[in-house]
């Protein structure tokens, strides 16, 4: 394998890692606040549909992004309503919302556009186009680093850079701010937060809404940047791989970056059977195998937030 091929694989690693990273961070916010969210998949899917449809109708990728975020927020609110307000089972709520997303996107797409459950193909300003970072072409001449900068670091849509920026931002908010302290506390021991005079429900809703925003960006990325329009089930299990990455990352922001890059790399080499002679199904299974290994305690211990999955009820 020559250097150019490696750069190609790394470039597509980044492309494929971005939705995983956004979804993984989305899951991180929610789960750190004690709300398990198996519905990342569904939120991304409705966001992908809404952004694809609105971007086509308005011709603006930015309008599509807002619509995607809006749709994912509606799903996040429903999840919050079910699991925080009404103290329902978080897994069941998540699964139900996934099914709803899976059906409703295709139904509305078919009714509105009559293209077999897809949204019409996007072009021009209706898509997020690739940005060339400053000096990318000039730097190309520098050996090794130059092409890496020009081909792998540069040349992605703005959402990619937003996703990477979300990592230090998430870290900073979680560990350096009052909001982050309370949010982590609510995922570990909500009673401690409640007795300190802070509303558990409000903290958890904030977290779930942030999850919605990030899933919305992830979905918009799929429909208006990675692809040119929405297609049925276009999330293709990314929400579940993101959850696996979250465990692999041990619920930490920087870990999420490395885990999703690794999983994105697996997906990237699965696209190049000519280069890597590993059967594609084996590569697709790798993220899950690795996650099982982490859960089994082979790669350090992954301790989930202690109050995760449990609705908060005041004790008597």
């Amino acid at each position, binding site marked *: 394998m020559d250097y150019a091929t490696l750069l190609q694989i790394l470039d597509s690693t980044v492309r494929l890692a971005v939705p995983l990273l956004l979804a993984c961070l989305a899951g991180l916010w929610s789960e750190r606040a004690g709300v398990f969210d198996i519905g990342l998949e569904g939120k991304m899917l409705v966001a992908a549909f809404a952004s694809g449809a609105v971007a086509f109708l308005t011709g603006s990728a930015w309008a599509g992004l807002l619509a995607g975020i809006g749709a994912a927020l509606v799903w996040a609110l429903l999840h919050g309503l079910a699991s925080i307000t009404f103290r329902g089972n978080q897994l069941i709520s998540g699964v139900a919302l996934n099914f709803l997303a899976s059906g409703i996107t295709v139904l509305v797409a078919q009714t509105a556009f009559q293209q077999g459950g897809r949204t019409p193909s996007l072009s021009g300003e209706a898509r997020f186009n690739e940005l060339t970072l400053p000096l990318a072409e000039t730097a190309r001449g520098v050996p090794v680093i130059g092409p890496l900068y020009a081909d792998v670091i540069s040349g992605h849509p703005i959402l990619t850079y937003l996703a990477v920026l979300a990592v230090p931002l998430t870290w900073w908010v979680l560990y*350096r701010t*009052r909001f982050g302290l309370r949010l982590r*506390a609510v995922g*570990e021991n909500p009673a*401690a937060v409640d007795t*300190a*005079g802070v509303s558990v429900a409000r903290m958890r809703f904030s977290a779930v809404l942030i999850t919605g925003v990030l899933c919305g960006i992830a979905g918009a990325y799929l429909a208006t940047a990675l692809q040119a329009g929405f297609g049925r089930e276009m999330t293709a299990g990314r929400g579940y791989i993101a959850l696996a990455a979250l465990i692999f990352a041990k619920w930490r922001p920087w870990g999420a970056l490395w885990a999703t890059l690794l999983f994105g790399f697996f997906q990237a080499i699965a696209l190049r059977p000519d280069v890597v002679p590993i059967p594609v199904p084996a590569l697709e299974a790798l993220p899950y195998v690795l996650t099982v290994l982490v859960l089994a305690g082979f790669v350090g211990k992954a301790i989930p937030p202690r109050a995760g999955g449990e609705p908060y009820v005041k004790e008597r």
Partner: protein
Amino acid sequence: MLQSPNTAPAIELRGISKAFGPVQANKDISIRVAKGSIHGIIGENGAGKSTLMSILYGFYRADSGEILVDGRETPIPDSQSAIRAGIGMVFQHFKLVQNFTVLENVILGAEDGGLLRPSLSKARKELARLSRDYGLEVNPDARIEDLSVGYQQRVEILKALYRQADILILDEPTGVLTPAEADHLFRILRGLRDQGKTVILITHKLREIMEITDTVSVMRRGEMVATVTTRDTSPAELAELMVGRKVLLRVDKTPATPGEVVLEVEDLRVTHNGVERLKGVSLTLRRGEILGIAGVAGNGQSELMEVLAGIATATGQVRLLGRDLNLAGHEDGRDRRRAGVGHVPEDRHHLGCIMDFAAWENVAFGYHREDDYRRGPFTDQAALKADTAAKMQRFDVRPPLPDLAIKHFSGGNQQKIIVAREIERNPDLLLIGQPTRGVDIGAIEFIHKQIVALRDQGKAILLVSVELDEVMSLSDRVAVMFDGRIMGTRDAATTNERELGLLMAGVTETA
């Protein structure tokens, strides 16, 4: 009528009532707590003490009544208002975030702004001052999960003081402490009082009330039945007020006459998740004696009980009436019961019964395959219900309704049903854990009598309890467990609380 703020009580409650569904937890409660005093609130489980304090802390809202702080009417709709009014609460189950540091726990909810750094450095200075002033030393950077419960409790007190609480409420604070830790806590509380703070202490332990409070209020069935000056009362009087009739505080029993050896345990070891929970426990138990295991919860007592009851595996040797028991998991709880071991589990709700099931079904558990409960392949429900009704009568279970789900009985009556189930099968060895946890004084008296009667019939009894008073008064011999080992065994008649307390803290005399 105006009162000058200096003489106004720190807290005054007027006509507080609170119902949970059909249960009236607090009925028209009025109370005054003098400033700069330690005020005890005593009552049995379910008397409404914790509910009342939760109302004061804004955790629940009262249905009616008013709260006055320093003579001013102060509505407390939520915990934030309570904190603003200068009220701090140390809950029975600590409200700490286990993987946060002490400092992070202290500032949680009382941060000074959006960013943590300034809050943390301010709290660090403030904590140093509070530690100095009140003898509350604790490492601000330690993680809660690495601290002993005694220190965790200090963090809770520091949390309240950091929020400038003038009134500190402590709910059953000594339940998880060794006697030495409890003494230290009392010193801290006296220090707080002497600096002008007001302390409200909720407990069901008469000894603590007598030792530390200035005034004591007694609650019974949701009502405040009396408020008296501690100096002018006695434990017997308080117990009578709590229960509503005269009660026997000491267990009435004759000296033991131990017979043949029933149980021999040698070098018992249990490892759980890589942590050794039992580190070579050996003990001997004879017919006609009660061996009490004292110790702070979590020092291996539960593991010992579970191994003997056949629900956990271990290495080492256990002989029951001369026969080696299989500890590798080839024998289960049912095999043990058939071998003559009765087991009243420590955690009644977790291992002792199924709360949603009827009393008669709970009476069958563990014995459901016995012939007298069976008719061919089926359960003989009529026989079971008749037997349950008979047990209920003999053990004075109220209400005597075999079909009622066990969750509808009070803690004391639940425990009576379970004790009846285990005792009436005539075991050679009875394992009984926390026999009176969550049980009212009247039922405690009854259950203690049953245990002593069983001993007098020549049975061997292994008692595990975190209530040192109970172990001392009920046992013939007391073994103290600390960190998975038996630190020593003492004759219950001649030992004292200080000696056992040192052993409970892992201190052995080096004489």
